[in-house]
């Protein structure tokens, strides 16, 4: 990869071991070399016109999201180690970029400021927005992203998600809320975040990570700390706070939301950080030097935390819980949940299993009984089961990270007897569900008998008197 760098940096003193071409004043007028397939840029200006650079890249046939741009506004430019780490992490992040579709790019235009300005527009710029992929559970009724969106940009209609891209602010709450990681922001995937942090670890012996909003201006952190951008800190989940520790970082800090567009972002990130601290504490690890409010000049010894899966990805919370193996941690910010079902109230309608997007709840008909099974490792506490359960109080969801429950694995949370068809012997429905129907149709015995005695297949061909 050819790196094009701005001449305002004293490159003679900073050798970062890459193929570097230095262009005078590149930040003021960014140019794209026409003789390379892979290119990256190192700039120094805060006011580099990214939209202009992206237009030029697009025009030259590059996908701007696939081109690393390192701005050294928050880095000590005299340190080859720090500049090298930033360049390596940007390259690693881009190497994990898997492309994006037109649905991920929303055009943006500055507001009209004068009567005459309707005659002229700024050249188009684009902002990346999340969009669900094929694994979306909307067809089964999941609306976790709809509930999470603070901008009213997502709607659920007849089994599919519709998105008003112009209303989408790209805050990423839907990405964090999606129980199956179907909502994708192609410029902030778990793989990219993993790669970025791991690359810093390869360049630097001991480092801290500051998670900050990509939309705001990042403050320069103390020596040894590196900024890692997320769409907004309001989307951060507790296991994301811990994720850098599993990738070699000695400490983590979450900066305040910098864009000012998400009023509750700081409250949400504080809640996630508090949960992460409690999680560490209940795992027998002192949280304070590892998760800090403000990066300090000293870094603790890195925690030897080995997590089986990417802590930023789907299943990351369960993998983190298994790695930490601590006491149960409860709280509203919990990324995992435990479901209990009251067998006296539950009718076995299977709505919870139908709507559960991550298959944490599954209905298993087995030899005359219907079992509802629960897998705690798959439950993200999204609350879809509680929202859709037609029997008030039948299902309870608690936000809790419980390593012991995860170790126990799948379990049956309720069992219902199935009523047999009087004609063919196949299952009709759970007895409790038929009792519920009987209560509603008690004054119509003929219809009731027809519905409760024969299965769906026989109902069309047999009359029961």
């Amino acid at each position, binding site marked *: 990869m050819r790196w094009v760098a701005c001449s305002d940096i004293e490159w003679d003193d900073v050798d970062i071991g890459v193929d570097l071409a230095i262009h005078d004043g590149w930040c003021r007028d960014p140019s794209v070399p026409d003789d390379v397939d892979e290119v990256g840029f190192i700039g120094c200006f805060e006011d580099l016109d990214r939209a202009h650079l992206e*237009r030029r890249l*697009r025009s030259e046939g590059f996908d701007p999201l696939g081109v690393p741009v390192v701005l050294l506004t928050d880095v000590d430019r005299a340190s080859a180690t720090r500049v090298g780490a930033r360049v390596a992490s940007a390259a690693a992040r881009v190497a994990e970029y898997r492309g994006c579709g037109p649905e991920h790019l929303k055009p943006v235009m500055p507001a009209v400021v004068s009567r005459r300005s309707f005659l002229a527009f700024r050249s188009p710029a684009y902002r990346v927005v999340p969009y669900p992929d094929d694994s979306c559970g909307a067809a089964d009724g999941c609306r976790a992203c709809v509930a999470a969106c603070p901008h009213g940009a997502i709607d659920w209609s007849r089994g599919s998600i519709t998105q008003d891209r112009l209303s989408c602010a790209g805050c990423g709450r839907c990405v964090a809320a999606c129980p199956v990681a179907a909502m994708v922001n192609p410029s902030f995937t778990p793989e990219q975040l993993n790669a970025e942090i791991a690359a810093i670890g390869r360049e630097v012996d001991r480092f801290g990570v500051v998670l900050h909003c990509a939309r705001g201006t990042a403050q320069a952190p103390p020596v040894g700390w590196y900024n890692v951008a997320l769409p907004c800190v309001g989307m951060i989940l507790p296991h994301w706070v811990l994720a850098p520790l599993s990738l070699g970082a000695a400490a983590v800090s979450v900066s305040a939301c910098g864009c000012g567009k998400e009023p509750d972002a700081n409250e949400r990130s504080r809640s996630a950080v508090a949960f992460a601290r409690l999680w560490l504490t209940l795992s027998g690890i002192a949280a304070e030097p590892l998760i800090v409010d403000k990066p300090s000049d000293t870094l603790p010894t890195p925690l030897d935390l080995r997590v089986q899966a990417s802590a930023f990805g789907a299943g990351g919370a369960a993998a983190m819980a298994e790695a930490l193996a601590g006491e149960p941690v409860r709280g509203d910010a919990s990324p995992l949940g435990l479901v209990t079902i009251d067998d006296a109230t539950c009718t076995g309608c299977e709505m919870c299993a139908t709507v559960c997007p991550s298959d944490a709840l599954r209905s298993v008909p087995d030899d005359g009984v219907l079992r509802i099974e629960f897998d705690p490792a798959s439950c993200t506490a999204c609350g879809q089961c509680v929202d859709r359960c037609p029997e008030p109080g039948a299902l309870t969801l608690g936000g809790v990270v419980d390593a012991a429950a995860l170790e126990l694995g799948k379990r049956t949370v309720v069992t219902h007897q199935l009523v047999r068809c009087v004609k063919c012997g196949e299952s009709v429905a759970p007895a409790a569900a038929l009792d519920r129907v009987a209560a509603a149709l008690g004054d119509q015995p003929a219809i009731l008998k027809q519905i409760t005695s024969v299965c769906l297949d026989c109902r069309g061909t047999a009359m029961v008197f």
Partner: protein
Amino acid sequence: MSDMRGTLTGSDLARMRQGCYRVLAAGFSRPSQLQAEQIQTGLALLEDLGLGMFSFTASLRRWDSALADAAPAAVAGEYVRLFGSGMDGAVCPPIESQQLGVNLVGDAARHAGRIEDLMRRAGFETQLDDRPPDHIVVELELASALCAAEAKGRADGETGREWLERQMELIAVLGFWVPSFSITVGERDRTGVYAALCEATAAFVLHENDLVRMLLEAAGETEA
């Protein structure tokens, strides 16, 4: 058109969009030497106008590249197979009412009537043609004509709102059926040319849906 850093006039933007609709409509027309030349010329002109700054550019270029790589006879044969005969199960009628699978009595007429109504309100006349009004070529050509009218209006000092509202009406129609049509063609096309064309059309329509909404907001209140 202006350079990529500065501004572009509303009129130029409308003309650029007009050209995109036109060249896409040409892509769905019956293949011929003349049609191929028109597409090549159209795409080259659009590049000169600054097409490269838009997000849908890559998909248009992929189509251009697929068209250049494919044998004309194969493209002509595939056109008939996909959009005409439906041979080998490749049934992809480029017609809104057929793509949506509506088969209730009067539904096809309702879809066609909606487009004809829009044409009449915009002051355009329909010519006798072998295509129904809800054919993709007709809808794209109509969108192109609406953009041309907007460009003229803007050049005359208007906000273009009247034309943008009609465009939005048509884009809502295109946005409803072109994405699924694009997927169908993508699965069945053997040459890659029509899959790329449909992908470019779907990407452009999606972009238009956002852009025209923004332009409408920028145009302000309805003109008196």
